[in-house]
C-alpha cells in the first residue's frame, strides 16, 4: 500500500539545516494516522501502525529493519547528542533491527540500539541503551544507560538502569517466546483492519 502524506521532511532547526526525508521501502506499510518525520530509513515489510510517531527531528538518523512491526501508540525519538553503531557500522540515533516487534505505547528514545528478533512489551521505555538480539522485554519496563546482552529476558515492571542489573538478567525461555509470540499474533489478527 502506498505511503500517504504523513511522511514529512524534518523541519529546519538550529542544529540541522537539511530537510531530510524518510526513505521507506515500497513494501512497507505506514498507516495514515502515524507520523514519520526526517531521516528515517524503513526497510521491506515493516508495519507502522496508527498513532505512532517516528520523529527524526532532533537525533538522527533512524533505521528500522525489515519485517519489524511498530504497533499503535509507539514513539521513536532521539536526543540531539549521542549515537550508537548500527549493524552496518554506521552511526545512528536509533537502530531497530529486523524481525523485531515494538508493541503498543513503547517509547524508544535515542541514542538507542535494538537488535534483530527483539520484543519490546507494552509501554516499556528504552533510552540510551543497547538491547541485544533476541531479547524479550515485557510490559512497563524501563531500560536506560545499559547494554543488555543478546537473548535476555526483562520481566514486567523491571527498572534496569545499571550495568550490574543488566548483566544479571535471566536468559529467555521457551515460555517467554510463546507469550511474546502470542502478543505478536494478536497484532497479525488486527492487521486485517489496516490493509
Amino acid at each position: 500500500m502506498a505511503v500517504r502524506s504523513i511522511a514529512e521532511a524534518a523541519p529546519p532547526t538550529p542544529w540541522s539545516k537539511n530537510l531530510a526525508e524518510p526513505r521507506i521501502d515500497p513494501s512497507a506499510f505506514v498507516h495514515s494516522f502515524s507520523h514519520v518525520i526526517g531521516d528515517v530509513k524503513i526497510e521491506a515489510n515493516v508495519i507502522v501502525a496508527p498513532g505512532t510517531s517516528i520523529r527524526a527531528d532532533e537525533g538522527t538518523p533512524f533505521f528500522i529493519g525489515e519485517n519489524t512491526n511498530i504497533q499503535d501508540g509507539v514513539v521513536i525519538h532521539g536526543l540531539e547528542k549521542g549515537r550508537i553503531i548500527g549493524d552496518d557500522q554506521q552511526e545512528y540515533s536509533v537502530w531497530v533491527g529486523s524481525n523485531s516487534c515494538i508493541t503498543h505505547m513503547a517509547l524508544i528514545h535515542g541514542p538507542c540500539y535494538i537488535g534483530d528478533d527483539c520484543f519490546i512489551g507494552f509501554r516499556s521505555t528504552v533510552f540510551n541503551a543497547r538491547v541485544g538480539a533476541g531479547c524479550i522485554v515485557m510490559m512497563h519496563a524501563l531500560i536506560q544507560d545499559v547494554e543488555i546482552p543478546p537473548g535476555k529476558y526483562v520481566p514486567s515492571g523491571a527498572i534496569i538502569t545499571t550495568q550490574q542489573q543488566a548483566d544479571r538478567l535471566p536468559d529467555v525461555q521457551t515460555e517467554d517466546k510463546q507469550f511474546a509470540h502470542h502478543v505478536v499474533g494478536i497484532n497479525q489478527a488486527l492487521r486485517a483492519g489496516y490493509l
Partner: protein
Amino acid sequence: MSVPPLRLSHNFDAYISGEVIIHPSAVLAPGVILQAAPNSKIIIGSGVCIGMGSILKVHEGTLEVETGANLGAGFLMVGKGKIGANACIGSATTIFNCSVEPGQVVAPGSVLGDTSRQISDLTTATD
C-alpha cells in the same frame, strides 16, 4: 514501575476500525484508537469518557466498556474483557485480556492481566 510520559496526540480525530458501537453520549478525547478485528467487536456504553491517546483493541470476542466508565489518558486495553459500569481507570494503565468490576478504581500506571514470567530475585523487579 515506570511508564513513559503521556504525550499529546497529533491527531485530534479518533481512529476507529472494525465493528465498533459507540453510544452517542460517550466522549472520546483526541487521538483515541478503537480497533476490532473481523469477528470481534467493541461496545462503548452511554456516558463513557475515554481519555487522550487511549488505545482499545480486540482480536477475538467482545471488548465492552459499560455505562459511566471513565478511562484515563493513555489507557491501553488489548483483548476481550469488560470494564464495568462507573469504573474509573487511572491514566497510563494497561489491561490485557481481562475485566474490571463495576465501580472499581484502578491506580494510574497499573498493569492488569499480565501473565508473563515474573522474576522474583531481581531486586529491580517491582510488583
